[in-house]
């Protein structure tokens, strides 16, 4: 029973605000679209549990915080840890972080820093590994450490073509493995790494099955739902995630054979790229799909980039497995922090081709310098290829909603016209 006289603590207030942010997105996902998917219920409940009720998921387990996708979760699982990816999408935390970081910083980094500053976790990481990817994340590590958290930097090269980078990154991953193994008091062995690689590989193979359905003419799943599924992988218990996705695959199979289409017949198919939509910051994806378009594929580090490339091992011995794991996180990565990024452009084009996309929407967080800087080259490449593209700059604040909706709707309309003209 609530009593009238209780004064809300800052944490309670923060949690209430976050719950409000979370529930509005969950409700939108649940209710705003036709043909809801039953097995998505697991994910809606999961996000409600974690972000509305703030219940811990991994009690009694050692939680390993990761600041970016480059920290190999295979090694964390092999060493009995639970990886928690700390990329944050809450405006509430973004506002807290704003006081600690420069004005024009990336909202994702601000939100993560804000989260640590408030020290208000349902599953608090026992140790955090921070790969030196973009400037802001690199520097954020030190700031977080100053709040009294254990943060360990993992050196990450910013070119991927050179031999030196390969060696540097392989050594970095090895030393990460050593530090974690000392922290955990457990050795990394051939058998525990092999089963971790294969378990994550299986999870990735399920993601590939999901995306396969999105190639169909009748798209059986919304892009926002897909973002939620992949987002859940940031913190969920892996076995339960696998079970839920298996069910989802089975349901999508039925829907695909029944020809269920979550979008309209003429809805333009969108390939989404740029700064990662992280729950509950599904602002742009929601606007897109509420404007009668459907996201069929994406090129973001919160979704596709996290799952697309699996570890490929040639010799199933520890020496080769560690190198394979390292290579996966460097070579296949299309992060804009790299000096050259033709791979990302080719990837977007390939996604448009294989998912029969009608256009590309490129979102960059205001303050995410690398995505902002890559905008020109991607736009030029799309123009060369004759692929319509919309570039949007946004942040976590709810204020620009109207203006963004107008722009997205206009773009979707033009895509529809283009489609009609083609016919």
């Amino acid at each position, binding site marked *: 029973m609530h009593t009238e006289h209780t004064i809300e603590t800052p944490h309670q207030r923060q949690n209430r605000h976050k719950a409000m942010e979370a529930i509005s997105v969950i409700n939108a996902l649940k209710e705003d679209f036709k043909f809801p998917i039953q097995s998505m219920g697991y994910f809606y409940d999961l996000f409600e549990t974690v972000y509305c009720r703030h219940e811990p998921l991994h009690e009694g387990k050692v939680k390993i915080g990761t600041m970016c996708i480059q920290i190999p979760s295979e090694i964390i699982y092999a060493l009995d840890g639970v990886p928690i990816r700390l990329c944050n999408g809450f405006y509430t935390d973004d506002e807290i972080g704003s006081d600690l970081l420069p004005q024009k910083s990336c909202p994702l980094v601000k939100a993560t820093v804000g989260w640590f500053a408030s020290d208000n976790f349902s599953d608090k990481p026992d140790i955090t590994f921070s790969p030196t990817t973009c400037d802001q994340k690199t520097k954020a590590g030190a700031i977080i450490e100053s709040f009294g958290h254990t943060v360990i930097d993992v050196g990450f090269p910013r070119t991927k*073509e050179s*031999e030196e980078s390969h060696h540097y990154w392989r050594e970095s991953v090895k030393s990460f493995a050593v530090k974690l193994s000392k922290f955990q008091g457990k050795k990394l062995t051939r*058998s525990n790494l*092999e*089963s971790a690689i*294969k*378990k994550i*590989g*299986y999870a*990735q*193979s399920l993601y*590939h*099955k999901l995306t*396969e*359905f999105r190639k169909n003419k009748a798209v059986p799943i919304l892009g926002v739902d897909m973002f939620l599924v992949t987002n859940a992988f940031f913190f969920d218990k892996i076995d339960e995630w*696998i079970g839920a996705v*298996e069910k989802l695959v089975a349901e999508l*199979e039925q829907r*695909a054979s029944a020809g269920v289409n979550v979008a309209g017949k003429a809805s333009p198919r969108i390939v989404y790229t740029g700064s990662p939509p992280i729950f509950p910051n599904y602002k742009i994806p929601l606007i897109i799909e509420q404007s009668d378009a459907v996201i069929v594929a994406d090129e973001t580090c919160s979704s596709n980039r996290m799952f*697309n*490339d*699996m*570890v*490929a*091992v*040639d*010799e*199933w*011995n*520890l*020496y*080769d497995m560690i*190198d*394979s794991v390292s*290579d*996966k996180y460097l*070579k*296949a990565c*299309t992060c804009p922090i790299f000096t050259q990024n033709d*791979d990302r452009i*080719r*990837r977007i*084009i*390939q996604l448009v*081709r*294989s998912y029969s996309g009608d256009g590309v929407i490129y979102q960059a967080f205001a303050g995410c310098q690398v995505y902002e800087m890559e905008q020109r080259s991607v736009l030029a490449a799309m123009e060369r290829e004759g692929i319509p593209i919309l570039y949007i700059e946004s942040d976590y604040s709810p204020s620009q909603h109207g203006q963004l909706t107008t722009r997205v709707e206009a773009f979707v309309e033009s895509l529809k016209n283009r489609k009609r003209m083609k016919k």
Partner: protein
Amino acid sequence: MTKNKFSLRRSVNNMNLVRFRFWFQIVAFVLIVYGGYIGLDLGNKLPTFACVFNGEGTGGKCYVGELQHDLKHPLEGFVGFAGYAFLISLGMFMVWFWALNKGWCGFVCPLGTMQDWLTMVREKSKIRYSEYSWANRGKIKSIKYILLILLLLLPVMIANSVFGLPKLPNGLSMPFCDICPGRMMIPAFTGHFNQFYIDFSSKTDLVMTTLGMIIVGLFLVGSFVKKRFFCYFCPMAALQYVFSKPALLKLYKDGAKCTRCGDCYRACDMDILEIADDVTSKNLVTEDCTLCLKCVAACPEEGCLEANFMGATIFESTKEGFILRMAMDQRGEKHAH
């Protein structure tokens, strides 16, 4: 997921290439090394190391040996029969070679198979492989061409005085065979260890046979620690590459589908960088490629790499195949490997 569930193409693309290649290599090894005992005779123009010194066991003969033999004639002889014989041999070599392209190296060559066996022993004993640095990898590429030129030139210089130089001693009549580890290793499989010797009859023989012994020692240790150690230096590979363009079997790459994830490069025994980094070329049979197709098996992108025979795809990379080969298709905690 509109694919036919039980199509032949699908099962080929899903095959366990490592196992297929292991057995294919054993069959080819038996035919080449022991084929002679069952009356197999594939002729003496094979584009692979079917060793002449293997006596009755050999199921055919290596063209590099024949080539050195064909060239040891006085120049005026090339106007007549020797010239025709040379051209016919070269033609037949090309015909054989075009059928499999460099697949002769990756699937047939007994010396290559031996190296793969040594690699398997190393893998089983959990000893890490060695790699060349990229710079050294680039430097040693030219050695095979130097060896090829020498093996073409020396026999001619025995029979002729080239540029007024004195004729070379007869001990150099098979210069490459003298230093080829196949001469020692292949007959050893039919129980003949008599090719391990040092010949003191002349200075040339002494030098060449000693070199041969040194190289066979390097071969055994080298291919234990480095996958396909010898293939980097193989003049047969150089000779083959000269004629590789019109071959029927090809390794094609669709650069648009490539994410440059480097899985193919990881799998490549010859550490060929182009296979991962080249997104513009279609034909990826490079000079050191052995067409072992491990890269195709390791590629997770749908249809990015493919083995193509006369325009027909016979084996291509698929996501499903990749997942099966990496044993990532099941939830199971433990995987037998």
